[in-house]
């Protein structure tokens, strides 16, 4: 490598300020602000319908921003169409996985690298995905729709990583999965962060698991951030314990 090591961009990797977004006549997000620093795992916890997925989808450009600003990696992201966002280094593993059911596992991974023009690098990254998720290599020629829920979640994460993102957005990776599989998925998220320095914005209903892997957390209630703190502090906050940890 001839280039000098790049200095990290000053300030947070993702900065969301006073975001408003919604569907039709309804505003789902109300002046929502949050940030993710490089190398951080940040989680948004909250009940069903609080606006967690809407937050991620607005950052990705799938849902239109009505007011407020989103900065990513030092540039203004607001208004960027969804298909351009991934080129800037943001990738999402969406709620419900959204695997392409009639593409093979390998083709799903290739779709994740759709914006890349380095076939060699893509092939290498597919091999890396197989190292991270050996089950995907065994299933590589099968249609994605035939995978189990846990396998589909692994594929969704691997597919998102194929674009070599700077920030990985994970929407409910634990949804509908057996407890051991959930533990496995969260181990992988932790490993991605610790070994590869991947920054992660994680949306979860499973607050306990999310707060265990995250550095910081936000609590989202009906479109508003009500509490934010270090993940460890949130885990011990009596209000959070009662409302989100079932104690």
């Amino acid at each position, binding site marked *: 490598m001839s280039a000098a090591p790049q200095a990290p961009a000053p300030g947070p990797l993702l900065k969301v300020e006073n975001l408003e977004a919604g569907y039709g006549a309804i505003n789902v997000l109300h002046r929502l602000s949050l940030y993710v620093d490089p190398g951080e795992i940040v989680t948004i916890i909250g009940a069903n319908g609080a606006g967690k997925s809407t937050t991620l989808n607005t950052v*990705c*450009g*799938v849902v239109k921003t009505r007011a407020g600003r989103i900065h990513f990696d030092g540039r203004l992201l607001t208004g960027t*169409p*969804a*298909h*351009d*966002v*991934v*080129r800037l280094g943001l*990738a*999402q593993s*969406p709620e*419900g*996985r*959204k*695997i*392409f*059911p*009639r*593409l093979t596992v390998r*083709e799903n991974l*290739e*779709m*994740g690298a*759709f*914006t890349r023009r380095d076939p060699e690098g893509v092939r290498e990254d597919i091999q890396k995905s197989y190292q991270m998720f050996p089950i995907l290599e065994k299933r590589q020629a099968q249609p*994605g*729709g035939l995978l189990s829920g846990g396998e*589909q979640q692994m594929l969704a994460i691997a*597919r*998102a990583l194929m*674009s070599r993102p700077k920030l990985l957005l994970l929407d409910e990776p634990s949804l509908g999965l057996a407890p051991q599989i959930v533990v496995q998925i969260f181990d992988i998220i932790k490993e991605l962060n610790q070994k590869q320095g991947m920054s992660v914005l994680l949306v979860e209903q499973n607050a306990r698991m999310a707060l265990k892997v995250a550095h910081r957390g936000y609590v989202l209630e009906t479109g508003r951030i009500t509490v934010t703190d270090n993940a460890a502090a949130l885990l011990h906050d009596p209000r959070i314990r009662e409302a989100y940890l079932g104690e």
Partner: protein
Amino acid sequence: MFESIATALGPEFYQYLLAGLVTGLLYALIALGYTMVYGIIELINFAHGDLFMLGAFFALQLGIWVGAADAKGQATGQSAILAVAVMLVAAPVFCASLNVFVDRAVYKPLRTAPKLAPLVSAIGVSFIFMNAGVFWMGTYDLNFPALVPNTNLTPDWTVAITYQHLMVLLVTIPVMVGLTLFVRYTALGKAMRATAQNPTAAQLMGINVDRVITATFAIGGALAGVAAVVYGLYVNSAGYQMGFQTGLFAFTAAVLGGIGNIPGAVLGGILIGIIEKLGTGYVGDQWRQPLIFAILIVILIFRPNGILGARTREKV
């Protein structure tokens, strides 16, 4: 078994089968336009048959301009090869452009509207196209110049294969093989498959879904343009209503194969063509339409996903 059926049905069986295959390949080209658009935006583009008709009129007009046909569409015996070449290039471009224009002007503003709105608009576009056809060429059926001769190449066989049959096979089959390879292996083809399976996920992969939709209308239109030229050269007639019936037959083919499914459209087209020609041959020409539409009704009742459709509509 096939032999004994053929013997029982008489020597003309093979001739009907050949005619059915050739007609079916033409239906298949049109059915692909229905099925690809449906696969991406779940719109039954009812104007597609009339786009095919306008493509045939455009080709006829080109034949007249080049001097291969007189004002009544009769072949003049001149510049036949030039005319066929010009038609096969220009008619697909014309139909592709027109299809993309209609999508931008009519369907795109309704993209997030309830599905019924673009559907009714497509029926409206169908009427506009048909009236444009009347304005262009009038209401009488016209000749389409017989630029490809109808010579029997196999006088010693029970089945007569002509230059016209060969032309249809030599144009439609490579086009379909090309389309299959395109959809399988090119970036745009993969983007089309991904968009058909999950448009939101496709966006998240960096696929510009609007561009994919435009490409789909362009390709579907181009296929209709190819079909229009080949149909004209094979049937040697054209008229403003040709798109209505042919379009409905092709639509039935797409539904029979499984709407949204590309191999299904080809299979459905060939089956409908063969059923039509066997039905015409053994039952009578007046039963052609009832037969095809009875098939449509039966599929819609008993197997709405079509023959290959089991794989098309599942959602994760």
